[in-house]
């Protein structure tokens, strides 16, 4: 027990640094994937057949294969197969590769949520706007958008909570996120070796983070609860 109390501050400091990297990946993914997903959603709904077909094929590939494999391909393919590493070395390169993989992957998931939200707005809303002389973009902005957001908050919160945990997959290309930091103590790090509890303890970080997100999404839902669709 005394040993645990000696190890605890060392481990927490290390896990904090790892979790900072986890959070960085989380936010960068959100910032990239939220708008990119909307673009993909419009692509998949495009009336130009080639655009919608190509977009849907891309979404199928990205959603249909494991994110872990996508991470490995995006990180290693340029260097090993093309002999031209584009990511640069070190943690910065790994982070750039991981962000790219996560943004593409999550944008595809988000796009399907957006598409579902947009298509679930009754056609009568658009027709009412048209008859009142609104342009298509005015209808999207002033009539549909708020209703879409209201409808997609629950599925989006699901996906975003999954993202927090999925960042641990970046461990596969040795990104120094929190799982990597916890695992280091199993071998040997900072005088601690053969300890498995730090790895288990990482779960607490995810739980707290997702608890806060759950509260946040609950608040957003309540905010939009003033009207019914």
């Amino acid at each position, binding site marked *: 027990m005394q040993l645990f109390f000696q190890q605890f501050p060392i481990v927490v400091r290390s896990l904090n640094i790892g979790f900072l990297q986890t959070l960085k990946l989380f936010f960068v993914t959100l910032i990239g994937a939220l708008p990119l997903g909307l673009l993909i959603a419009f692509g998949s709904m495009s009336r130009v057949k080639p655009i919608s077909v190509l977009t849907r094929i891309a979404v199928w590939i990205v959603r249909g294969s494991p994110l872990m494999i996508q991470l490995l391909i995006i990180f290693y393919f340029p260097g090993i197969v093309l002999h031209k590493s584009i990511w640069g070395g070190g943690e910065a390169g790994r982070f750039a590769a991981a962000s790219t993989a996560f943004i593409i992957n999550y944008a595809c998931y988000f796009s399907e949520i957006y598409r579902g939200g947009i298509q679930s707005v*009754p056609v*009568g*809303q658009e*027709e*009412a*706007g*048209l*008859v*009142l*002389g*609104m*342009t298509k973009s*005015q209808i999207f902005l*002033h*009539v549909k958008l*708020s*209703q879409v957001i*209201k409808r997609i908050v629950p599925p989006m919160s699901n996906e975003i909570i999954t993202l927090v945990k999925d960042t641990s997959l970046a461990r596969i290309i040795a990104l120094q996120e929190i799982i990597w930091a916890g695992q280091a103590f199993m071998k040997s790090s900072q005088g601690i070796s053969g300890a498995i509890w730090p790895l288990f303890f990482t779960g607490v970080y995810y739980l707290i983070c997702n608890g806060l997100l759950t509260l946040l999404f609950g608040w957003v839902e309540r905010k939009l609860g*003033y*009207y*019914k*669709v």
Partner: protein
Amino acid sequence: MAILEVSNIRKSFGNVEVLKDISFTMEKGEALSIIGSSGSGKTTLLRCLNFLERPDGGSIRVNGEKLFDAADAATQRDKEVRRKRLHFGLVFQSFNLFPQYTALKNVMLAVELLAKETPEYKADKRAVRERIEAEARALLEQVGLQNRMQNYPWQLSGGQQQRVAIARALALKPDILCFDEPTSALDPELTGEVLRVIRSLKTDERTMIIVTHEMEFARDVSDQVIFMDGGVIVEQGDPAEIINNPKEERTIQFLRRFSGNE
């Protein structure tokens, strides 16, 4: 000069010809009721007038201006459709209010968006907005909703929602106001209040087209009745004449079935 001139309108969906050669005219201040069974093409006709459907043939003129001619591509440019639509207003069967806005904002929104494109708005936003709000309030009062202006659609009964929708359509001051079965989605005890409002709108200035299943209402409120069946106008003329003494066999059949349902 007729305010509305509809000539030889045709419309098909796939192989189904929904409108076959529809023609009629209306004078300013006239109320026209269109009756007929479901699937007779009444709603499609209103949707064509409001540019929600594009007719395959025929033409539409308002105040002599050719708004649409199937034979003239120049009248079909998407850009101008928006301006042309404003000649018509449409009240839907299912209201289609915007759920995120109050009754007042529902009435104001489209007017505000249109006003934003004018030089007056740029000069004095405040004054324009105040004027729009005052007009919207007056319209809601006119339909008897002075105490419901700040309510959201879900807080209103079906009849109240439909009255908001009527005020919303009036706000744009259309030349011709169309109603697509305005009481068909309402409980029987709520139809009265909506019909009363529509009746009260009838003035020498306002031109209205009402698609309805309320025969008594059609007879009392309109100056002209059209009976449609299978995409054609079967009978047309004086309301009391058509509803009380129909000449055509199909009209007689329809009205008999109708009184049986009542």
